[in-house]
Structures are given as structure tokens and as C-alpha cells.
């Protein structure tokens, strides 16, 4: 990524932690589907050869010196993409579960529809055979909680296969949930009157490694996310009451969009 990105350019962001078995193939597949598009792997201080495998596969690698977890890892990528001037960023997980063939569909909607974020949804077509019963139950719970907050149904609020435009990138590079970020990120955008769409995408089994979500962690996950959603609403509404103003306009002012921490 030595060259500055062209206007309207796209970056594929791949957060990865100990994914040496899968990340290389993910990068190569993305390169086949989207030739010429920059791929940035954010290595969350892996203990294995994730970074070197990604480099060999042709990706650029942003190496975090300490393990930050998914949210901090993704945000680091968003910050770099924003600073480098990218217009669109699509996040593809490093475990190979996201099919890169859905990237053009996500990009199409992102560039043509008036929305700031596009979610690659596993459930838009109504097929729910991809996940276990308990996970499906959790997703149904989140859908019900998010419906009144977002003002519309979101079929797959936990999907990490997400594309954002530059306005959303500006917001996320300043404020992004650190643990289990997907659902809270939706609320962060909604509070700023940003719009999102979902496109169908078929998930695949992991290419290597295993999920870090255990039964006990699932309960923690649900409590954490619900609390995070609640806190985000309070934070935003509290700020709005203090300012005594209406919600910010859809488009961020230049100075605000360019503001970095």
C-alpha cells in the first residue's frame, strides 16, 4: 500500500489472531475475486506465523504490538484505512468463514444505495441451518432488542462480514466497541442517523482453528452486548440532552470527520 489509494478505492480488512492455517488462503481468495484491491491483515499479536503467512500471500500487514481483542484489532485497521484515505472498507474474517465471492455484492450495495454500512447476512434468505440452536436463540433475542432501537429488523446482527463507507469509517476510527463489536457498532451508527442494509451471503465452515465462544462465554457475551447497547443509547441520549440539539446530520462535517484521537 505504498501508493496512495485511488478515489473511491476499496480496502479489504482482515482481522486475524492465530490464524496461520487459514489467513493465507483467505488473502489469496480475496485477490482472485477482487484483483488489484488492497488487502490489509491486522495481526492481533498472534503467537503463530499469521503475519508472515499473510505477507507471503500478498497482503499488507498491520502488526499490533499487544493483543487487543477483536474490537481493538478491527479499529486499528479502520484508523489506518481512514488515514490513508480509503473510501470503502470491507471486513472479512481471517478464519475463512466469509466467502469472498460476496464482496462484490456488498460493494455494489455500499456504493449504489444510500447507506453507510452493509452487512453480509447469513439469514436474509431465511436459511438458519448454519448455526446451533443456542446461537440462533441468541440472535433472535438480539433481533428483538435491536428492532425498536434501529427502527427496522436486522436479520444477522452478529455478522462480522461488514462493509462501511468513509463516513462510517470516520465514526468507527474514533469510536468503536472493543469487545464483541458487531451489535454495538450498529447502535453507534444508528444513533448518528446512519443507514445500513443487509445482503445475503452464505457462510462457510472455518478453514482452521476453532471458535473462541464457549457456552459460558455465550452468557457473558449476551450480558456484555445488551449492557453495551444500553450504555451506547444512554451515552448518546445524555450527550444530546446536554447539548440540547437534534441528532447530527447524516453527513459529518469535514473537521469532525478528520478528527483523530
Amino acid at each position, binding site marked *: 500500500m505504498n501508493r496512495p489509494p485511488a478515489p473511491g478505492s476499496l480496502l479489504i480488512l482482515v482481522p486475524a489472531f492465530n490464524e496461520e492455517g487459514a489467513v493465507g488462503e483467505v488473502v489469496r481468495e480475496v485477490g482472485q475475486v477482487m484483483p488489484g484491491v488492497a488487502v490489509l491483515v491486522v495481526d492481533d499479536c498472534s503467537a503463530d506465523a499469521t503475519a508472515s503467512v499473510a505477507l507471503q500471500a500478498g497482503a499488507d500487514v*498491520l502488526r499490533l*504490538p*499487544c493483543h487487543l481483542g477483536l474490537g481493538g484489532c478491527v479499529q486499528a485497521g479502520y*484508523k489506518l484505512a481512514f488515514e490513508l484515505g480509503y473510501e470503502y472498507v470491507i471486513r472479512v474474517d481471517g478464519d475463512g468463514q466469509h466467502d469472498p465471492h460476496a464482496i462484490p455484492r456488498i460493494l455494489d450495495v455500499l456504493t449504489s444505495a444510500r447507506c453507510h454500512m452493509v452487512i453480509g447476512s447469513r439469514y436474509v434468505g431465511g436459511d438458519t441451518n448454519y448455526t446451533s440452536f443456542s446461537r440462533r436463540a441468541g440472535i433472535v433475542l438480539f433481533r428483538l432488542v435491536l428492532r425498536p432501537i434501529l427502527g427496522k429488523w436486522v436479520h444477522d446482527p452478529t455478522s462480522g462480514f461488514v462493509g462501511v463507507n468513509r463516513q462510517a469509517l470516520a465514526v468507527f476510527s474514533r469510536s468503536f466497541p472493543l469487545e464483541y463489536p458487531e451489535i454495538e457498532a450498529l447502535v453507534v451508527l444508528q444513533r448518528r442517523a446512519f443507514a445500513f442494509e443487509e445482503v445475503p451471503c452464505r457462510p462457510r465452515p472455518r478453514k482452521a482453528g476453532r471458535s473462541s465462544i464457549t457456552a459460558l462465554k455465550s452468557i457473558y457475551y449476551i450480558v456484555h452486548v445488551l449492557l453495551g447497547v444500553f450504555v451506547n443509547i444512554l451515552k448518546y441520549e445524555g450527550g444530546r440532552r446536554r447539548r440540547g440539539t437534534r441528532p447530527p446530520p447524516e453527513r459529518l462535517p469535514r473537521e469532525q470527520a478528520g478528527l483523530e*484521537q
Partner: protein
Amino acid sequence: MDRLLNVVSALSVALFVMVLVSTRRAHIRVEYSVSWLAAAAVLFVLSRAKGTLHWLSEAMGITYPPLALILLGACVFLLVFYRFSIRISDLKDANIALTQRVAILEYRLQSRDEKDEDQARA
């Protein structure tokens, strides 16, 4: 009751000394030692000033004054923990921002070096 109050006094003195020693050895920064020293001082004063403790326990509706002391001690330590939770959260946020910034700067430096090398070769 006196024995329990003496134990609380001894524990608060031990806490006070331990925090002072840790501060002197720079294991605890001075600004963080203040909360612990204040907590130890409050416990010591209340365990020695029996009149004040009786008045406090009556005000709280507790018939057994040492129980009031233990409750107050728990409240004091909860406040200390709460203060440290805020501080830890601040530090974690700063740590994440710094980690991300270091990674981005390293990336940009490396990109610049590679660009310079390419130009030198050309």
C-alpha cells in the same frame, strides 16, 4: 466488642504501614496510595473513637457498633475499588489507543522505507 475493635485498629495500622512502605519502594504511585491511606485512617479513627462509632451505629439503626464499623469499612473499600475501576478503564483506553498508534506508525515507517528503497533502486 473491644477485641474486635482492637483487631480492626491493628489491621488498619498494618494497612497504613504496608501502603507507606510500598509507596516508598515505588510499588504504588503516591496518587494511588492516598485512597488506601485515607481508608486505613478512617478505619483506625472509628475503631478508636468509641463515642463516634456508637453515634454512627445508632444513626444507621445498627445495635452492634462493630457491625457498623465493618459496614463502613466495606463502603470505604468499595469506594476505593470504584475509583480504581475508573482509573483502570482510563488506562486501558489509553493503552489501546497507544498500541494502535504504535502499530500504525510502524506500518507507515516501514512503507516509507520500502518506498525509499524502491526509488533508490530505480
